């Protein structure tokens, strides 16, 4: 099996799951993305991505307890797995390494 790669949106959603910890479910992720990244995303797109990440073993899910809100429907709560964390870390490190390679001392004035 080759190395798994993440798409940009997948990475975003995975990060949000990591941030929200025990409170990561569809709507929460949508509003978190809206708040932190300023992007309007479709609920369905988030759901599909979550299931895909689950297939890849980067997050896992369980049904939360029933509440009175949401018409009594339970939430599907996602939590990041160790593999997911490792993946995020690897991405971040690679970014940093690459960033270092860009010449930074360019003088901007003309």
């Amino acid at each position, binding site marked *: 099996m080759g190395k798994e790669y993440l798409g940009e949106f997948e990475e975003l959603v995975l990060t949000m799951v990591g941030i929200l910890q025990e409170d990561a479910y569809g709507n929460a992720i949508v509003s978190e993305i809206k708040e932190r990244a300023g992007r309007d995303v479709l*609920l*369905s797109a988030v759901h599909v991505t979550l299931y895909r990440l689950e297939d890849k073993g980067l997050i896992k899910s369980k*049904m939360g307890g029933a509440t009175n809100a949401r018409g009594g*429907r339970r939430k599907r709560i996602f939590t990041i797995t160790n593999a997911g964390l490792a993946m995020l870390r690897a991405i971040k490190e690679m970014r940093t390494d690459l960033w270092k390679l860009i010449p930074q001392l360019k003088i901007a004035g003309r």
Partner: protein
Amino acid sequence: MSRQKDPPRLALRFLKWFCPSHLYEGIEGDLLEAFDVDVEQVGLYKARRRFAYQAVRFFRPGIILRNTFASPFIQRAMLKNFIVVAWRNTVRNRTYAALNIAGLALGLATFLMMYLVVRFENSFDRYHKDADRMYQVISYDKFNEPTSHVPGAVIKFLRENSGVESASAALAWPPNVIKVRNENLQQEHAFYVTPEFMKTLDIKWIAGSPDKSLSAPYQVVLDEPTAHRLFPEGAMGKTIRVDNAYDVTVTGIIQKVPVNSEFQFEFIISYKTVDRYASWQSNENNWGGGDSSHHGYVMLKEGVEAADLEAQLRKQAELHKEHGQYAYFKLLPFSEIHFTEDNDTYNYITPHWLPDTLFYIGLFVLVIACINFVNLATVQSVQRSREIAVRKILGSSRGALVCQFFVETAVIVLMAEIIAGGMATLLVGHMDYLLSTHVASAPVWNGNTFGFLLLTGLAVTFASGFYPALILSGFQPMSVMRNKLAALSARGISLRQALVVFQFGIAQVMVICMLIALKQMQYFHTQNLGFDSKSVITIDMPDSGDEMKREHLRQQLLKHSAIKDVTFGLTSPSSTRNWWWWTIKHPNLANGAATFRLQFVDTSYFRFYKIPVVAGRMFQANDTSKTNPVVMINEQAVAALGFATPEEAIGTKLGEGDNVELRTVIGVVKNYHSQSLKADIVPHLYSFRKSNFYLASFRIDPLSAKEAIALIGKYWTQEFPDNYFKYAFLDSDLRTFYEDENKFSNMLTTFAGVGIFIGCLGLYGLVSFVCTRRTKEIGIRKVLGASISSILLLLSGNFLVLVTVAFAVAAPIAWYVMQQFLEQYTNHIEMPWSAFAVAGAITFIMAVMPVGWQSLRASRANPSDSLKYE
């Protein structure tokens, strides 16, 4: 109040319908939560809309398919296993796999090629932007006879009609000669066309435009290849002399017209030129008859019904009855032009039955191939039974097994399709030759072709894989493991027998049809037409009126022994074109008038063509006198005029069209076939009019044909130095009558052969299977003293009985089909019973060969070899 706060119920139901149940709760909850927030923030109306939108957006593969592939990992692993097993099976049973693939590939290639032909023929002139509003006008005379001639007055009427977007005339009239840089050249595909027509067709203009390039007289537009051929250095503005009569200037160049168009325009002269040069063709006051290659085309405004216009035209024809030739007109949709035989076509006609029959023949061949597959799969089933039993014991569901067999079938079909695609690509050119179409010149591989292959592949996979999958997946593991397959194989064999009968039934129907069609063709080609067409060369005369030149040519040529005889006339006794019709008036005729075919003949014409005069006399040199015009007729005309014997007709006087003078009948010639044998003999009127000799006929000595042609060429060029010398053999011209039938019998011959061949492949597989299974039995029989011949009979007898049964089924079907086929021809052969015998013999021999060979091999095997192991 809370009811009003509900989200749209329809959206929820839709979500519930497609959403996998294990995901549903989480998704619905999220949607409802967002809805509650929205109701607070943006109001109920907007919130409901957002809810519906968000819910519908969940309708995507990532959600929907999660249901179907609940455990995608296992499924994918099994699929891989299926393909591996399929591949191993293919490799292990190479003979069967090869037989299967070869049969299916042949069947698929046939079907694919048929599809290509049908698609090509059906694509004619459908590509024009407004093709659905474009029509060709077809005229019908008082006798309901259709013709494609449209008089100028009709075109004028249509052009001025409010429901018509544009009406145009076109005239096909290839010049005898064109002169470029003092060189005499020939130019086919030459037309006189109005600019309106060029605008309605989808034609790409490289230089010029319809309005600028064709609106004045003496303008010509060339297509690109012609422009290059005539003027390699650039054609625009150059002049060409046409028929030594007038000059035209090149004012435009168009791209070559696609091959799937009736309008193969290469040399387009502005229609205005016709007014100057032959105004009788284009005369806008003419309601009468004329040249059948003078067509009328019309483009209706959107929403206008063709029937409305037809009614208006009928009224107009009624108004101009006095000097009108036609009773009514019909509008033929553009897409039908290519299929309508009443049309004096600009390209070629394919009657509907031809592509239709082709398609069904392709389908039948494919069915034969599918049956092969089913048969071979069922005989192999015994070998596979253990594998299936083990799979079942290990927990495979029946569905998974069915899936496995379909995958195996699909692998074989895919391989066959790849081969079939290659074969079709290579052979489609050959197919063009057999059917004289131009499929190969049109793009063959496009999205449609792949779509067709995909669909056919799926259908074939399903048809061939269905039965094996059903039988094999139904095995009971217990009985298989205990080697109790007897009951099962008995069932399998009876179906196998039925399929073999079906397969060979189809093949034999095709063979019988082929033989009878070929016989009918042979009859057409060898039937005595009533005149002698052997060793006759014909040449179109450029200057029909010049008697001096004509006689000079005749005198010169007759001095040579290679030229036996020379004569002149309107056409040869039988020709595919240039038919003139004349209204003949006589009190004996019904309504006092009838239409006779008109033929202008020289004094030597009947002698030349060996057409006997049965009464009266032939024309003599002095019969041209205006005071006592004389004519001859044929026996059919005698009958039409109501005379009992030809002698009685001599001296009778006939009225001719509007002429006041009556013509005296001086002679009657024996009937001969002036049209194809598909039609009846029509009444003829012969007239000796020297100004209408458009064709010269030369009978040559077949032993010195080359010399004769050289001589004719030499003297002809001397008399007509400004013309292009082009000759034709009458024999081969006459064959063009039967082009459709030729195509039909050609393709039947090919595909009946392919069908039988595929069937034999299957038989070979079946017999070889039986032989391997009965190796020991044969060994024991031989040890006990059985002769080779008795074993041969034992092994192959069963199959030969099947082929015989198939013949018994096929013969009546073929008889019925061919009865229909033959009855459409006026002159047809009797149902040839020998064809049935020959067809039976051919299939029998074809079947005996593989069966006999395999059985012989098995029966000659040394029993010690076959009994040794175990």
